[in-house]
C-alpha cells in the first residue's frame, strides 16, 4: 500500500508539471495584453508603461517566466495580482472561507440526503417511493444549477421576499441576528449545489445497494435472524458505500468547478467568482494560481479515491 501511494505520487508530479506548463503557455501565448488598460490610458507615459512591464517581469520570454513562476509557486508564492496589487495568496485566503462555507456545506448536505434516500429507494425497489426518488434524481441532475438558482431567486426573493437576493460578504457573524442573516443568505446557494450533488449521489447509492442486496452474505445475515434494519444498514449499506465513498472523493474537484457557476448567480465572493472576474480583467497571476489549484485538487482527489478504495475494501490489493 505504502509503495503504491509513493508510486502514484511520483506519477502525479509530472502530470502536474505538464498541466502547469500547458496552462502557462496558454496564458502567455494568448493574444491579449494584460496591460491593455494601461496602454489606452493617456495619462500613463510609454516609459512608465515599459517600467511596469519590466517590474512585472513581462519583458522576459515566457519559458523563463514559467520557470521563475514555478519555482516561486513551489515555495508557496503565487505572485502579485495585477489588479488589486496584493499578493495572490492573500486574495485566495480571503476568498476560500466563502467558497468552503457554500460548496463544502452543500456537498455534506448532498451526501446526507443521498445516502438514506438512495438506500430507501433500493430497498423499496419498483414501488412508488422508488419511482419518485429515481425520477426526482434524474430531473435533479438534468437541471442546470444556474437555472435552479434563478428559479429559487424568483420564488424566495422576488415573489415571497423571504430571502435576500445577493450574498453580503461584509456580514460578520457576531451575534444571533447576524448568524440568522448569514444562514438566510447562504441557504439558497447551498440548496442549489446540495440538491444537485444529492441527485447525482442518490443514483450511485441506489445502484450499489441494488447490487449488494441480492448477495449471499445479505441472505446469511437474514438467515441468522438479524432484524431487517440491521441487515440493510449494517451489512448491505456498509459494503455499498465503499465505491460511493471513492465517488464522493472523485467528485470534490467537480463540486469546486460547480461553485464557479453558483457563486456567479448569487454573487458569493469565493474562489470561483474571483476566477471569472480575474479572467475578465486579464489578471494572469490570479488566473494561473486558481487553475493550478483546481488541477492539484483533481490529481489529489484521484489519489485519495484510489487509496480510500484500498483502505475500505480489504479485498483490493495493490501490486
Amino acid at each position: 500500500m505504502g509503495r503504491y501511494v509513493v508510486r502514484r505520487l511520483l506519477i502525479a508530479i509530472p502530470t502536474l508539471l505538464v498541466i502547469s506548463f500547458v496552462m502557462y503557455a496558454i496564458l502567455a501565448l494568448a493574444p491579449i495584453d494584460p496591460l491593455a488598460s494601461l496602454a489606452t490610458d493617456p495619462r500613463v507615459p510609454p516609459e512608465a508603461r515599459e517600467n511596469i512591464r519590466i517590474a512585472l517581469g513581462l519583458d522576459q520570454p515566457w519559458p523563463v517566466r514559467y520557470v521563475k513562476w514555478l519555482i516561486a509557486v513551489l515555495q508557496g508564492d503565487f505572485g502579485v495580482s495585477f489588479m488589486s496589487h496584493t499578493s495572490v495568496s492573500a486574495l485566495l485566503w480571503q476568498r476560500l472561507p466563502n467558497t468552503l462555507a457554500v460548496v463544502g456545506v452543500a456537498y455534506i448536505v448532498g451526501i446526507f440526503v443521498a445516502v438514506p434516500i438512495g438506500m430507501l429507494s433500493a430497498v423499496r425497489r419498483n414501488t412508488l417511493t422508488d419511482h419518485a426518488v429515481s425520477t426526482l434524481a434524474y430531473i435533479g441532475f438534468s437541471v442546470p444549477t444556474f437555472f435552479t438558482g434563478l428559479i429559487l431567486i424568483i420564488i424566495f426573493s422576488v415573489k415571497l421576499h423571504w430571502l435576500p437576493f445577493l450574498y453580503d460578504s461584509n456580514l460578520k457573524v457576531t451575534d444571533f441576528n447576524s448568524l440568522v442573516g448569514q444562514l438566510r443568505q447562504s441557504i439558497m446557494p447551498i440548496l442549489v449545489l446540495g440538491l444537485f450533488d444529492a441527485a447525482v449521489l442518490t443514483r450511485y447509492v441506489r445502484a450499489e445497494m441494488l447490487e449488494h442486496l441480492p448477495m449471499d452474505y445479505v441472505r446469511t445475515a437474514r438467515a441468522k435472524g438479524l432484524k431487517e434494519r440491521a441487515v440493510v444498514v449494517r451489512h448491505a449499506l456498509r459494503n455499498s458505500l465503499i465505491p460511493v465513498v471513492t465517488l464522493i472523493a472523485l467528485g470534490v474537484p467537480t463540486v469546486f468547478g460547480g461553485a464557479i457557476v453558483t457563486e456567479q448567480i448569487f454573487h458569493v465572493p469565493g474562489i470561483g467568482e474571483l476566477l471569472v472576474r480575474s479572467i475578465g480583467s486579464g489578471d494572469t497571476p490570479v488566473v494561473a494560481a486558481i487553475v493550478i489549484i483546481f488541477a492539484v485538487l483533481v490529481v489529489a482527489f484521484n489519489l485519495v479515491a484510489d487509496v480510500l478504495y484500498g483502505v475500505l475494501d480489504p479485498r483490493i490489493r495493490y501490486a
Partner: protein
Amino acid sequence: MATTTSQVRIGGVAQEYKRPARSLWADAWFTFTRDRFAMVGLVMLVILVAATLIGPFFYERPMGVIDFSRGLEGPSLEHPFGTDDLGRDLLGRLLWGGRVSIAVGITAVIIAISLGTAVGALAGYFRKLDNPLMRFTDVFLSLPILPLLLVIIYLFREAIAARFGPDLGIFIMIVTVIGVLNWMPVARLVRASFLSLKNKEFVEAARATGSTDRRIIFGHILPNVLSPILVAATIGVGGAILTESTLSFLGLGFPPDVPTWGRLLYDAQNFIDIAPHWVIFPGLCIFLIVLSINYIGDGLRDALDPRRRI
C-alpha cells in the same frame, strides 16, 4: 443486415422463413420502444428539434424587431413567451437560439467522439502506443475543465472572431474547445473494448485471411464497439449543450445577437425581478432537452446491451 426474410437451404432447396429476421439494430429498437422513459424523451427531443428547425419558418414574428414600448412584457397572445428588455419576441429568439445550442451540442460531440475513438482504437490495438497514449489521456483527465474552458475562450475569442467573423468564430471556438476537453472518457471506453476484442477468434480469423490492420480496425473491431460509442455520444450531446449554456451564462459564450439558450439566461438574470418569464422559458428549454437526451441515452444503453435483453 436488413433482410426481412432469411433464406435457409434445406436439402439443396432454398426455403423461406415467414418470421422476419431481426438485426441487432431492429432488436435494439424493439427494446427501446418498450422503455417508457426513453420514448417520452424521444418524443420530447423530436418536438424540440423540430420546433427549432422548422419553427422559425412558421412563426412569423421576426425575432430582431425592437419595440421599446413593449419591453419586458409577460406572455400574451401576441407574444406567447413575452418579450425581452428591447421588446423583442422571446419565442422567436428561443427558436433561433435553439438551433445554435443544438448545433453546438452535436458538433462538439462529433469532435469529442472522433478524437476519443481514434486515440482509444490506436491505444487498444497497437500495444506500443498503449502506454504513451494512455498517459496522455490521464494528463487530459486531470485538467480542470471548466476553468480552462473559461480561460481559453476569453483569451482567444477576439483573435478567432477576427479570423472567422464574430458568430462563426465563436461557434468554431466553443465547439472545438468543448470537443477537445471531453474526448477522454470515450478514449478509455474504446480502448477497453478494443483490448477485449482484439484477441477474439473473429479477429484472428480476419488476420489469418490476410486482412490489414486498417481493415481489422475499421471493418471488424470498430463495428462491435459502435453501441457503447453511440450511448456515450448521445449523453455527450446533453453534456455539451449544458457546457455551452454554462459558458454563455457566465458571459463567455456567444455574442448578444446569437440568442442561445444560455445567452438568453445571462441577459435575463438582471431583469429577474420584473421579467421572470424571460428566465423561465430558456431555462426550461435547456432542462427539457438535457432531460430528454439523458432518458434516450439510458434507454439506448439498455437496448444495445445484449445481456440486458429479455
